[in-house]
């Protein structure tokens, strides 16, 4: 069913399982272009990062691409150039992005154009945050008090909605592989959704800052396929592949248009 349950089974079984670090010889693939552009609703700096893939075990930073021409094209408007800000980073300052609008990102590198389309959906509001003492699974086997955060929202009926939750705990943005929290309304269309944030537990006195991001199907597909390869234990899931990018012409990475609703809360002892 999924890797976690599978591993639970195995760990229950294994009298003598063990892990060790080994040497694996990996090939060095030809460098491929990686584009990452994230647009938020409202007035923000729109940032695009362009780089190249590097060797897998290498520790040197990725090569950045600074000779690209980057254009953001709001639906029905003229292309807006996104100027180079620093090494491989392109920034369009104080750009006003509107919800219920489609955007296109065009990147021209050495005469080859890579484009991606993203639709910024209307905002779904984060209604409230609640937390409760978590006792399930025997309180996770811990003696300390663990609080489970729940985000409450009302899904729009009749449309497909795709969500992502980003958590900031005590001013630290949780952005590791295991922190991805993605869900859709496939089984809860038009319902009040109470999303339990199992990605992290909170302790007495912690503050939680929660962002609810809405996105289109393609971006969701990118993030879920990305999540599969960064969180899975290599061999137990089906053959891994590169995430389904919304860029054409073989570029890696993605262009997202998020509409955001945000709330914070403090766990009172």
């Amino acid at each position, binding site marked *: *069913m*999924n890797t976690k*349950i*599978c591993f*639970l*089974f195995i760990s*229950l*079984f294994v*009298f*003598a*399982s*063990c*892990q*060790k*670090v*080994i*040497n*694996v010889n*990996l*090939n*060095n*693939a030809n*460098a491929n272009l*990686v584009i*990452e552009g994230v647009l938020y609703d409202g007035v923000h700096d729109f940032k695009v990062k362009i780089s190249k*893939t*590097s*060797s*897998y*075990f290498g*520790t040197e930073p990725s090569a950045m691409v600074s000779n690209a021409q980057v254009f953001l094209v709001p639906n029905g408007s003229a292309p807006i150039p996104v100027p180079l800000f620093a090494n491989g980073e392109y920034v369009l300052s104080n750009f006003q992005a509107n919800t219920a609008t489609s955007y296109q990102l065009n990147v021209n590198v050495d005469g080859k154009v890579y484009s991606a389309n993203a639709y910024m959906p209307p905002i779904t509001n984060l209604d409230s945050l609640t937390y409760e003492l978590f006792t*399930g*699974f*025997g309180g996770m*086997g811990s003696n300390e008090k663990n609080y489970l955060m729940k985000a409450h929202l009302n899904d729009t009926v009749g449309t497909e909605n795709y969500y992502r939750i980003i958590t900031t705990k005590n001013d630290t943005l949780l*952005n*590791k*592989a295991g922190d991805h929290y993605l869900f859709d309304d*496939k*089984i*809860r*269309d*038009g*319902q009040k959704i109470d999303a339990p944030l199992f990605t992290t537990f909170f302790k007495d006195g912690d503050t939680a800052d929660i962002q609810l991001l809405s996105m289109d199907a393609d971006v969701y597909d990118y993030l879920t396929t*990305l999540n599969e*390869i*960064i969180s899975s*234990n*290599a*061999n*137990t*899931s089906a*053959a*891994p*592949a*590169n995430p*389904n990018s919304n860029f054409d012409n073989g570029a*890696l*990475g*993605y262009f997202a248009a998020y509409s955001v609703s945000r709330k914070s809360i403090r766990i009172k002892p």
Partner: protein
Amino acid sequence: MLSSIYIHSFNFYKMLKYILQTMFFTFGYSLIANAHNATLSGRIKDARNGEDLIGATIRVVELKDKGTRTNSYGFYSLTLPKGIYTIEFQYLGFEKQSIKLNIDKDLKQDIDLQTIERTIKDVIVKAVKEDKNITRTEMGVIRLDPKSIESVPVLFGEKDIVKTLQLTPGVKAAGEGQSGFYVRGGGVDQNLILLDEAPVYNASHLLGFFSVFNSDALKDVTLYKGDIPAEFGGRASSVLDVKMKDGNSKHYSASGGIGLISSRLTVEGPIVKDKGSFILSGRRTYADLFLKLSNDSLLKQSKLYFYDLNVKANYQISKKDRIYLSGYFGRDVFGLGSNFGFDWGNKTATLRWNHEFNSKLFSNTSLIYSDYSYQIKAGFDDQEFKINSSIRDYNLKQDFSWYLNSNNTIKLGFNLMHHTFRPTVFSGTGLTTRDTLKNRYALEGGVYIQNEQTLTNKLSVKYGVRLSAFDYIGPGKAYTYDDKGNLISSKSYQNGETIKMYLGLEPRLSARYQLNDKSSIKASYNRNLQYLHLLSNSTTSSPTDIWVPSSNNVKPQIVNQVALGYFRNFKDNMFEFSIEGYYKSLGNQIDYKNGADLFLNLNVEAELEYGKGRAFGAEFYLHKQIGKLTGWASYTLSRSLRTFTNINQGKEFSAKQDRIHDIAIVGMYSLSKKIKLSGNWVYNTGSAVTFPSGSYTVDNVKVPYYTERNGYRMPAYHRLDLGVTWIRVKTDKKESSWNISLYNAYGRQNAYSISFQQNKDNPAQTEALQTSLFRWVPSITYNFKF
């Protein structure tokens, strides 16, 4: 729906009638011409317990090349020119019986064969040395007697026929300790697994570490890797035909075993002596009892076990009629704390009626039921949800064995099966879904005829054909998708209305040419169609894998296989040796789009990719069946490759099971009457695997960059297992023994998986981490019988 079943069965009957007529016309002459012949027929049984002996040989001493074998029910029939003959009845491990018979009219002769006391000191004098390896018109077949493999050491001491099959050429384990298997480069889901004719859809327990087959309840195991008889159909790669014991018809007995993680108990006995018997066999694991010792409160409350129950009864209602009822029921139960429950399992039932029309025509009619289901329950606070899914079959099967004359044995019959696919259904408090998945239905059937014919005393052929049909029927909706998998249109169908129908012709041919007393060459061609497909997004077998029918989008899988073999026996049939080469083409193979969502997806057919494949290889096998030392050595050199337009940029890639070299050596040695030693060693090339060839950063996370599918290899796998059996008591009535085994005796750390992670001390550094399971796993089992 009923009317549609009726129409379809009517068509099958029509077809069958036509075939029968043609056959009578063709062979009619020989029937008349042979009026001065007479037929000897009967059943061969084990004298100890009355079990039918399958595949026992009957040979006419005066006519060296004339002979036959018993069928699956111990029945044989042999037509000879009238005369007085010495007839030899023999079966491996049993004393040969010779009887002089005056066959001047049709004669019925039932035979009880006595077992050889194999542990008699020194040499086994009377042991039958069979030459079936070279004389049978079959190839690519592995037969196992569950008794003969009982001392082969296995993981957790749980003897398992599937794991023993994995030690034979052309059969590969799906992974460390797994009971799933690949046959000649095909997929795990391409094996038709039959338990007393009922298909078993998920043949494993506890995520594949155990097979559903409790060896105590089994009589005969045959795996067809190629040259698949025409009576079997429905899977592309192989048929694993498992037959349960009938039960002791002489006296009551009980046997069982107590092991570290499971125990077994079998009770059998006569219903009416020599007329009918029953067997009841159960098994339960209790590994989860150890969880109670854990300090972790979550583990303490967890459950993890399986049980299975085999039952069978048979009764001779008249001299010519016998009925059998057999059933299997097994379930895995998994619970995590009080919040999560998950259980799954198979149920099968078979009702059979054997009828001897006359000494030449034997009939078997079976009604078969098969069901696989799983259920997940979870609850937190006031919320609760449930996930259910199942596949259920009803099957009517009719088979005739027609022993036309001593040179022709004809098998013909048909079957008609109704499938119900219950897709994953999700229900719970406050849940609403935009689309509800509905049950899907299909009819699957086949008509076949096959003749095994002796042309000269050196050349024999087997030729047959199976006409199979698959009818995906309503009520239901058919969906049409564009190339990208977007839904274009859908159409509703009425109850019983055909949504999509497939017909397939599956020829099955083989020939044997005997070079001399010791060697023969054989060749075969067969074509197999598979109408059901297993959707699975994990590489190990998972209880939530779902079976789906062929439809307007999903085409039947087609496999064509040619094979050529050389068979030779040495030292008066003490050693059997064979080399078989095969080439297979695989059509309409299924893979998944990247990130395919197979769960609760109405448009699951849009998540599939279709492609083709090829598999080829050579299998070397040396087998010693008798003597103090028995066992075998097998080596397989093979490849298994796939091509999909949208995977690996359309370039051919290795299937996961593309392990080039595969070696297994199995040895069992009788040190004395009381002590038996056993050991096996395996080696294989690592599975093909996808590793990254670069990396980049997105969303602040290091992301692997993949350039090809299965372009890398896991490290080579090898392992030695050792076992010793100490027989304390062995008499006719009473037996008790201890078995101690050590799995992975030299503690090789075989890679179960390789994952990539950040170095703990230096997060900028990525390292490869290998996980291994099962080093030095000891086990001890006590077996008894009284």
